[in-house]
């Protein structure tokens, strides 16, 4: 099968790959580029573990074909920390013990980041809504909701 060239920006750096037509972005990121922060939970669009941000929108990388990402700007959780300093969401997930096995965590953080990028000071209901496409087996969700609300509160203090 003919390979398809794709080029995109991943966490600020240019990536170019040849992929088989029909390859998912999740597969391209994890197995070709080596960014294993998006996780493959269900590969069917129902768990959210593979969530990434494409051109500012939250997307499921298991349902996104790599070849449709030509020219896109993609962010994943592995690109969030800045020279070893954790992103506020990563810090908050640690501080509120919002991660246990950690399998859902990168997807949760991506979902929370898109929410906070658009709505820096969301209500609890908005947080719940934003996380509702992501499944967690371990935490019971409350610590994750609290992590996101912690960042939201510090956003509103910084704005004040």
């Amino acid at each position, binding site marked *: 099968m003919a390979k398809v060239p794709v080029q995109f920006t991943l966490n600020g750096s240019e990536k170019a790959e040849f992929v088989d037509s029909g390859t998912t972005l999740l597969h391209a990121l994890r197995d070709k580029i080596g960014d294993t922060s998006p996780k493959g939970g*269900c590969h*069917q669009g*129902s*768990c959210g573990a593979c969530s990434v941000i494409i051109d500012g929108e939250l997307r499921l990388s298991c349902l996104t074909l790599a070849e449709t990402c030509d020219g896109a700007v993609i962010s994943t959780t592995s690109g969030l920390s800045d020279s070893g300093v954790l992103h506020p969401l990563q810090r908050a997930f640690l501080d509120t*013990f919002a991660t*246990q*096995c*950690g*399998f859902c965590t990168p997807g949760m953080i991506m979902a929370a980041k898109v929410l906070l990028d658009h709505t820096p000071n969301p209500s609890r209901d908005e947080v*719940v*809504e934003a*996380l*509702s496409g992501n*499944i967690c*087996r*371990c*935490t*019971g*969700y*409350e*610590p*994750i*909701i609290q992590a996101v609300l912690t960042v939201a509160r510090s956003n509103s203090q910084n704005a004040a």
Partner: protein
Amino acid sequence: MAIRRGRGVAAINYPTGMNLGGDPTQALVHSTPTGNFMVTLSSVDLGQGMKQIMAQICAETIGVPTDRVVVDTADTDTGPHCMGTFASRGTHRAGNAVIQAAREARQVMLEVAAEELEVNASDLETDGQGNILVKGAPQKSISIFDVALSAHFKRGRSISGRGMFLIPRSYPEKETGAMKPSTCYAHACTVAEVEVDDETGEVTVLTVKNVFEIGRALNPKMVEQQLVGGSWMGISHALYETTEPYYPNRDHGGTDFNQYLMPGPGDLAETEIIVLERPSADGPYGAKGPGEMCANPQIPAVANAVFDAVGVRIDTLPITPERILRALKAQAAN
């Protein structure tokens, strides 16, 4: 047709570990040349915090800061024998093995320090900060870093220890059936409040109040994390989770986890957690196994609350709207 409220309570008694064929875990501890300590286990950390707790236990026993301990749970083929992390046994079994191994390593460490300081090993103590001091004369001291260097390069000693913890299998006495299937029990009690719609059979859990008695909480924040997640999972078992949610027959059953229901972040009950610490006699620093039992008492509590609300006993899990409606119909027919 109405929304009816009910409240249910349940208490449980939960054994730590299992009684199938003897329940062993082994551990090895050794120092690196720079005086860090490695704990080698084949007990797997799957998110419950095994590595953190074993590092704390080893550090406490040897007398060094926790960040001087590295836990390697790499390989069940080649590591010291462990039955596995299940049955809430990890902290209790592996923790005890780590204590024994760390004690032996500590003894060698003190012997080497004693030779360096020209005193008796029994006159030495650790300061918990990485130094070994002479009791009553703390100005006379040596760092564990230097002790490890001496052991490795000068004295040819291995600062290491072996640990083994075994709960032997208990068989029932022939005459009475009496046996001791476990040496250590955790306890929990839950009160759940529900609303049941007697037209649709739908159950909403309003509040869950849990008290957990878990021995000593070796890491209180991680214990809380486990209990909060477990309480949610208990509700999930009570009302949602099954591999066969569909009717009338198996052909309509779920085929993968996409059809496996669990409550999401929008379905959370107001949850309260209280931890009681009654240190266990044979637990590592008094710990018991809080793992699995944290998701148990919610199930009978919810079933009892449903009974309190609408007067029907559901004895098959999960308590689905269909089961409630069938039971209500049967009740009305009687």
